[in-house]
C-alpha cells in the first residue's frame, strides 16, 4: 500500500524557516534584500581592494607582486566554501525537496568555478616571481585543480539532463559523493607531495605571519568578496527560479498541444 500526498514537505516546528524556500516567497524577499547586499558589497569590496592595492607598502623582497593577495586569498577561500554551501543545499534538496535549494546549488556552481579559476590564475601569476614557475605540483595548488574538475563535472551533469528534478537529484548525489572524494583527494595529494605553498596564516595563533598593514585590508577584501558571492548567488538563483518556472510552463504548453 502506497500513499502519496501532493505536499511532500513535512510539517514541523521549523516551518517558519522552510517557508522561505517557497519560490514565491523567496522571489519577493530576495528582490527586497538584493539592493542592500549589493550596496554593502560595493562598500566593502571597493575600499578593500583600493586600500590593498594602493595604500599598502611594497613587501621587502617580493615587490608589488604581494598585492595579488587581495584577490588570491578571498577567491581561494570562497572557492572552497562555495562547494560546502552547495553540499548543504544539495542535502536540503534531497531531504526536504525544496526546489529553491537545488536551484541555489546550481546557481552557486558557476560562481564557485569562477572563483577557483581566479584563485588558480592569481596563484599562477604570483608563482612566477615567487617560485620561478607558473605551476608546480604543490598539494594546495593540485587540490585546487581537482576542485576545478569537480565543479566542471557537476556543471556538466546539470547541463546534460533535460528534466530539472532528475537533474537536481542526480547532481545532489554527485555533490555528496564528490565531497567525500574531494576530501580524500586532499589527503592523497598531501601524502603524494610535500609542497611549497604557504600555510594558513589567517588563523589567530599565527597572525603575526602577515603584518597588520596587509592584514586589515585583506579582511575587508574577504568580507567584500563574500558579499559579492551573496549578491551573485541571489541574482543567479533568481534567474534559475524564473528559468525553472518558464520550463514548467513550456512543458505544460507542449503537453496541451500534443
Amino acid at each position, binding site marked *: 500500500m502506497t500513499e502519496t500526498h501532493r505536499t511532500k514537505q513535512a510539517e514541523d516546528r521549523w516551518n517558519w524557516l522552510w517557508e522561505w524556500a517557497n519560490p514565491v516567497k523567496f522571489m519577493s524577499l530576495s528582490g527586497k534584500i538584493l539592493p542592500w547586499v549589493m550596496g554593502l558589497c560595493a562598500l566593502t569590496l571597493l575600499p578593500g581592494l583600493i586600500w590593498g592595492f594602493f595604500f599598502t607598502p611594497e613587501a621587502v623582497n617580493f615587490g608589488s607582486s604581494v598585492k595579488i593577495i587581495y584577490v588570491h586569498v578571498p577567491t581561494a577561500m570562497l572557492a572552497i566554501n562555495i562547494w560546502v554551501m552547495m553540499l548543504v543545499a544539495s542535502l536540503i534538496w534531497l531531504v526536504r525537496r525544496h526546489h529553491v535549494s537545488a536551484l541555489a546549488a546550481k546557481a552557486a556552481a558557476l560562481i564557485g568555478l569562477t572563483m577557483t579559476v581566479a584563485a588558480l590564475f592569481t596563484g599562477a601569476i604570483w608563482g612566477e616571481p615567487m617560485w620561478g614557475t607558473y605551476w608546480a605540483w604543490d598539494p594546495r595548488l593540485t587540490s585546487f585543480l*581537482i576542485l576545478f*574538475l*569537480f565543479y*566542471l*563535472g557537476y556543471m*556538466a*551533469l546539470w547541463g*546534460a*539532463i533535460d528534466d530539472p528534478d*532528475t537533474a537536481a*537529484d*542526480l547532481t545532489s*548525489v*554527485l555533490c*555528496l*559523493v*564528490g565531497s567525500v*572524494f*574531494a576530501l*580524500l*583527494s586532499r*589527503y*592523497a*595529494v598531501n*601524502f*603524494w607531495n610535500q609542497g611549497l605553498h604557504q600555510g594558513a596564516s589567517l588563523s589567530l595563533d599565527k597572525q603575526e605571519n602577515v603584518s597588520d598593514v596587509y592584514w586589515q585590508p585583506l579582511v575587508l577584501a574577504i568580507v567584500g568578496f563574500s558579499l559579492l558571492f551573496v549578491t551573485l548567488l541571489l541574482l543567479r538563483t533568481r534567474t534559475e527560479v524564473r528559468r525553472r518556472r518558464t520550463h514548467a510552463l513550456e512543458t505544460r504548453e507542449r503537453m496541451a498541444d500534443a
Partner: protein
Amino acid sequence: MIALLIRDLKLAMRAGGGFGLGLAFFLIVTVLVPFGVGPESQILARIAPGILWVGALLACLLSLDRVFQLDHEDGTLDLLATAPLPMEGAVAIKALAHWLVTGLPLTLSAPIFATLLNLQSPGHLWVFVTLLIGTPALSMIGAFGAALTVGLKRGGLLLSLLVLPLYIPTLIFGAEAATRGAAGLENATPLALMAGITAGAIALLPFAASAAIRVNLR
C-alpha cells in the same frame, strides 16, 4: 544475484560483448607512450608504474558505459527494478562483473606490459599487486558514474568527466605504492589507504548508485 552475474559474464563473452576490448585499449596506450615519449629505457622504466596505472584507469573508464547503458536501452533495467532483487545488490553484481571482465584481465596482463616499458623485476610484482587491490575500486566508482549517466544519450565523455576526479585518490595511492615498491622503498601506507578506499567504495557506493538509477528510471 548469482544468475545476474552469470548472465553478465556470458554476455561479455559472446560476440560483440566487449571482453578483451579493455585489454586491447590498455595495450595500445602502453604502446603509444613509448612512441610519444621516445625509446630511452631509463625514463620509460621510471614512468612505467604511473603509465600502467593511468592506462588501466583509462581502459576501465572506456568500458564503463556498457555497465548499465545496454540494459537500459532494451528495457532490462526497468524489469530488474520491478524484480525481487535489491537494486543495491544488482549494482554491486554488475560492478563485480565489470571488474571480472576488465579489471582482472588488466591486472593479470600488467606484468607483461610492464616488460614492454622496461620495468625491472620487483616492479612487475608491485604493479600487479596494486592493480589487484585498486581496480575493484575503479569498477565500483565507475559503476556509480555509469548509474548517474544511464539515461543520457552519448553519456560517454560526460561519464569520463564525472568519474575521473573520483578516480584521483585511488590513482595517487596506487601509483605511489607501485613506484615506491619498484624502487625498493617502504609502501605499506599507500597500500593500506588504497585498500581502505576500495573497501569503502564497495560498502557505500552501491547505495548511491542504486538511488541514481531509480531516479533515472522515473
